[in-house]
């Protein structure tokens, strides 16, 4: 490489760095803003920008969080988010694994057509089901109940779960299953002792993806959840209407609601990424 060429590429490398640093700041700043705000008391926020908190760390306080955690409403709604997200994730994993296994390794008439039908459901918007299911839940007493929200999330998580797990299970070498069959294993044992353990990575990805999906949902909760004890997203959404007067509630509230997803994200980056990528058809 000639000297001129090298110098030019060095300059280009510098430009790339500058660009990426600026972009990185752009991505970081909004979150930092809310984070710092969550540690400033309301009076401090009225006097000027949150960025003043960066230069004077002494102004930061955990009082907002303490107040929020002492207030039963927010902790209650966090619990209700857990009460929805955990069962909705487990149900999808169990039902999705079973169906995925059936589509991958069991023979029955109409299997391929049925699987295509499930694939078709991948892109059905949840909005289509809001009115019909609220009428249905109203009729059978599931409206504004945790069970109703859980079932709804499970149903809408299933197409992706079945799609993902069927494709993953189908990649298991047939010889492994045959060998187990020859040892006299029935379908149930085959499923539990061969397919599930081998499908671990896919199941983990799916579980994380579904958990975050449900944890972060607002629309379904807005329609179906118990309005007396709504999940955190709905509880905070109701506060947004007075945005401006209550950043000292909204900012720490938002961070409490983000804590779990962020922890999951950093702890299970790989699985999360896999889930998101596999979900690229959803």
């Amino acid at each position, binding site marked *: 490489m000639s000297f001129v060429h090298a110098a030019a590429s060095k300059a280009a490398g510098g430009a790339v760095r500058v660009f990426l640093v600026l972009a990185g700041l752009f991505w970081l700043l909004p979150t930092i803003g809310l984070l710092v705000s969550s540690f400033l008391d309301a009076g401090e926020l009225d006097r000027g920008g949150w960025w003043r908190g960066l230069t004077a760390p002494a102004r930061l306080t955990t009082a907002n969080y303490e107040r929020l955690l002492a207030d039963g409403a927010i902790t209650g709604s966090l619990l209700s988010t857990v009460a929805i997200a955990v069962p909705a994730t487990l149900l999808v994993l169990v039902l999705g694994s079973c169906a995925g296994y059936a589509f991958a390794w069991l023979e029955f008439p109409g299997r391929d057509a049925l699987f295509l039908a499930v694939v078709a*459901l991948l892109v059905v918007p949840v909005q*289509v089901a809001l009115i019909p299911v609220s009428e249905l839940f109203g009729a059978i007493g599931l409206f504004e109940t945790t069970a109703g929200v859980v079932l709804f999330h499970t149903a809408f998580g299933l197409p992706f779960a079945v799609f993902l797990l069927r494709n993953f299970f189908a990649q298991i070498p047939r010889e492994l299953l045959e060998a187990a069959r020859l040892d006299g294993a029935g379908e149930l044992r085959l499923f539990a002792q061969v397919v599930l353990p081998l499908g671990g990575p896919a199941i983990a990805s799916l579980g994380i993806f579904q958990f975050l999906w449900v944890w972060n949902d607002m629309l379904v909760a807005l329609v179906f959840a118990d309005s007396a004890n709504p999940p955190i*997203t709905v509880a905070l959404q109701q506060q947004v209407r007075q945005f401006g007067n209550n950043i000292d509630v909204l900012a720490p509230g938002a961070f409490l609601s983000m804590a779990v997803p962020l922890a999951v994200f950093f702890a299970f980056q790989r699985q999360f990424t896999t889930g998101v990528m596999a979900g690229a058809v959803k």
Partner: protein
Amino acid sequence: MAASDGTAAPAAVPAQPARSGRGGDRRRGRPGGTGRTPRSRQARRRRLVAAAFLLPSLVLLGALVVQPIGYSVWRSLFDRSGEVFVGGDNYAELLRDDAVRTAVENTAVWVVFAPAVATALGLVFAVLTERVRWGTAFKLLVFMPMAISMLAAGIIFRLVYDHDPDRGVANAVWVGVHDTFAPASAFPRARPGRDSPLVPEGGAAAGGFATREPVRAGTPVLLPLVGVAPDALPEGTRPARPAPAEPGKVTGTAWQDFTRGGGGRPNAVDAAESGFAGMRVEAVRDGRVVDSATTRADGTFTLSAKADGALLRLPASNFREAYAGVEWLGPALVTPAVIGAYVWMWAGFAMVLIAAGLAAVPRELLEAARVDGAGEWQVFRRITVPLLAPVLVVVLVTLVINVMKIFDLVFVIAPGSVQDDANVLALQLYRTSFGTDADAGLGSAIAVLLLVLVVPVMLYNIRRMRREARR
């Protein structure tokens, strides 16, 4: 990051389900039964097992996903009470209704811009991060918003877009940049008092003031103004001082000609009156600025002999209102602003998928092109992008579907007063179906419209699965 190696996933790269179709098909070639039981009995048993594995899922899907589709279509043909059949009236209403039209237009804007911008940024990030050592950290940062809720992102951006430049970082930066080029004045409301030697210059709208009479060197000039609240005076303001006469120079004072508590004489510098610091004074002769100066802390200024015989002017820049920044969440900009928040959330998604695709691009190909003398841009434009085309399509399609259903971000970021202007289909559906004035018929029609919009993607997915199953 897992994304960049792209190997762990079963269906990591969107094209990969291709391979997975085989498992089941291969099984078809298996000789039926192992011989221990009659074929028919075994087949029936197998069907029962399959049913047991499938039934719970199918029941849920049937009741909560499939049945609602049919019901929505049916319900959309009835009025709000659900008792009167109205045929296509609800759909006709969709065409008439202003709110729905705004929603359709905004959704179109979303679909055109949001996926394209997010994908373009994702592509740029994916390509550039390969060249820096901290690329992985950068990717992690940009991908992170994918993990949080749209509600949390909405709250984050509600603060970013806050109109008050002392609160919203967007306006803080914007106003900062603006003020660097066009500084705001400390005296937006200053104006000449009664019988002042100053008159509005260039018409009242121009905003500046000039002396009635030409000024003379050696005779101090008085530029009295009133109308600035005492506590609005900038820090460092000093008591006004009559300018000493200087031979061959034009001197003078610009000051607040008002004594607090009364007792000041008009058009005279009294002891308790404040100077106007930092005000620009121009000497104008025949419409041309021949000299200029800036007032000192006590309001005094000195101009050269060139100003002799000219008119003194206090140009409009002295009286410019403080710039309040852009109203990001006003009716005009709210949709682009919310799209900005969306791009912040989803560019990472595009980036990760594209980076995985990029990892599969053969390096030798790029190197060969470089050896042949192709510039980086040419390599990017003619080799990288075409090779990534399939991934780019998947990313774009995914984002388009996603954007058509966008709800939370708009609902949270757009303040109540501009939600009509920021309206999108999914929001209109929610408002129509569950508002105080709910109309389930009209809401169902919007739901059907949303469903129809995703049907092409549905068919594309099915076609792809079938093609892959056949392979």
